């Protein structure tokens, strides 16, 4: 077997040259392009990662902002609820005070009206009673009524303190008359009888005059020069009305 060493050498050199040629025209440009593509993909990936990171950061910021808004809303709702509760409490307290004041006012008004009504009723009752009594009294003969009145006058003068009775008697000194006013005119006999008994009770001899005043309703009044002794229903009813108006109940 014959080996051509020149051919072996030339083929070795040829292969070396081919390695260089393919490295120059194939591997280097292709690998460079692949590296560039990888770098670009990596760059785009990095950009995408940056964008993703930014998006995540913005999302986190938005979520934080939303959480802040929610917390702020919660706080606002809580504050509003507290304020509303306070206002409701204040209004309820004010309403209670107003209601209490209204009730007090109403109670007072009712009490006042009730007092007024009671007074009116008392007055009506007094008037009615007086009217009934006056009618009933009209059926009693005058001499009996006058007897009752003179007895009452005598008892009063008798029970009066000595000093007061003397002061009254003193007013009749020097002939000054004592005026006797009755609700209706006394018969002459009754008038004489009254004249005698009053002179005896007072211990005087002064002249006595008789007068009629229907406003007295019943009874009589002794008009001294500077004092009046009232024994009439008019004065009794007036006293009763005054007591009813002052104390709410007649005595």
């Amino acid at each position, binding site marked *: 077997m014959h080996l051509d060493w020149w051919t072996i050498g030339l083929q070795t050199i040829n292969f070396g040259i081919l390695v260089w040629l393919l490295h120059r025209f194939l*591997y280097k440009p*292709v690998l460079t392009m692949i590296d560039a593509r990888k770098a670009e993909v990596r760059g785009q990936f990095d950009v995408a990662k940056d964008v993703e990171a930014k998006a995540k950061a913005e999302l986190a910021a938005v979520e934080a902002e939303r959480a802040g808004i929610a917390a702020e809303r919660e706080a606002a709702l809580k504050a509003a609820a507290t304020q509303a509760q306070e206002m409701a409490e204040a209004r309820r307290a004010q309403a209670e005070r107003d209601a209490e004041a209204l009730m007090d006012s109403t109670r007072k008004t009712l009490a006042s009206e009730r007092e007024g009504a009671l007074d009116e009723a008392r007055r009506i009752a007094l008037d009615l009673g007086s009217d009934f009594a006056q009618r009933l009294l009209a059926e009693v003969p005058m001499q009996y009524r006058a007897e009752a009145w003179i007895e009452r006058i005598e008892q009063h003068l008798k029970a009066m303190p000595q000093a007061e009775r003397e002061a009254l008697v003193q007013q009749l000194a020097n002939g000054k008359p004592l005026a006797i006013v009755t609700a209706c005119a006394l018969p002459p006999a009754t008038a004489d009888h009254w004249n005698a008994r009053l002179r005896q009770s007072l211990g005087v001899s002064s002249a006595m005059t008789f007068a009629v005043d229907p406003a007295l309703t019943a009874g009589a009044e002794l008009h001294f020069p500077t004092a009046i002794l009232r024994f009439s229903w008019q004065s009794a009813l007036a006293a009763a009305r005054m007591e009813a108006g002052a104390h709410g109940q007649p005595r």
Partner: protein
Amino acid sequence: MQSSPLTSTPLFHFGPVAITRPVVTTWIIMAALALVCRFVTRRLAILPDGRQAVLEGIVVGIAGQIEDVIRKDARPFLPLLGTLFIFLVVANLSGVLPGVEAPTSKIETPAALALIVFFSVHYFGIRARGLRGYLASFAEPKLIMLPLNILSEITRTFSLMVRLFGNIMSGEFVIGLVVALAGLFVPIPLMALEIFVGLVQAYIFTVLATVFIGAAVGSVAKG
């Protein structure tokens, strides 16, 4: 057809140097590969077109095969091993063309390639391990293996050469015989088989070279 398939007849002489047919065929293959690569890689783009995609697929596929065997970055080995595969594919298949002899069908071309692989293995081994470390690897796993390891370096290189030469030469020889005996269209199935054999032999030669280099750099177990 030559009288002996084992000898190369000079086409012309360049001084004392005899220029044989395999050398001229290799020059044509070199020129064609360089021009095609130059043409295709003239305007590469980030978004590849069809031709660029095919070219990138070939390069990335070869690099992937190298990485699968060596289990290291393939780029330092890609120019040698990639060129070896591409050249062997083109050279083996060139014999199918009418009037063209495959350069690998003559003993000198496989011998040259085997020599290149032989020295490349030592180059990459020394570069990866250092001279002492690389030499020490010959005594692994036992010192007694030293002669056998040295002998295997020579025999496996010889095996590379003979395997490639024998397969390609025999294919062409059989096709020539059938053409001479049976006629023009009878050897077509044999030519298809020769294409398959050419591709397989290119792959085997390149993978074995890769394995030898991987063993030298220490990433593949010797065996």
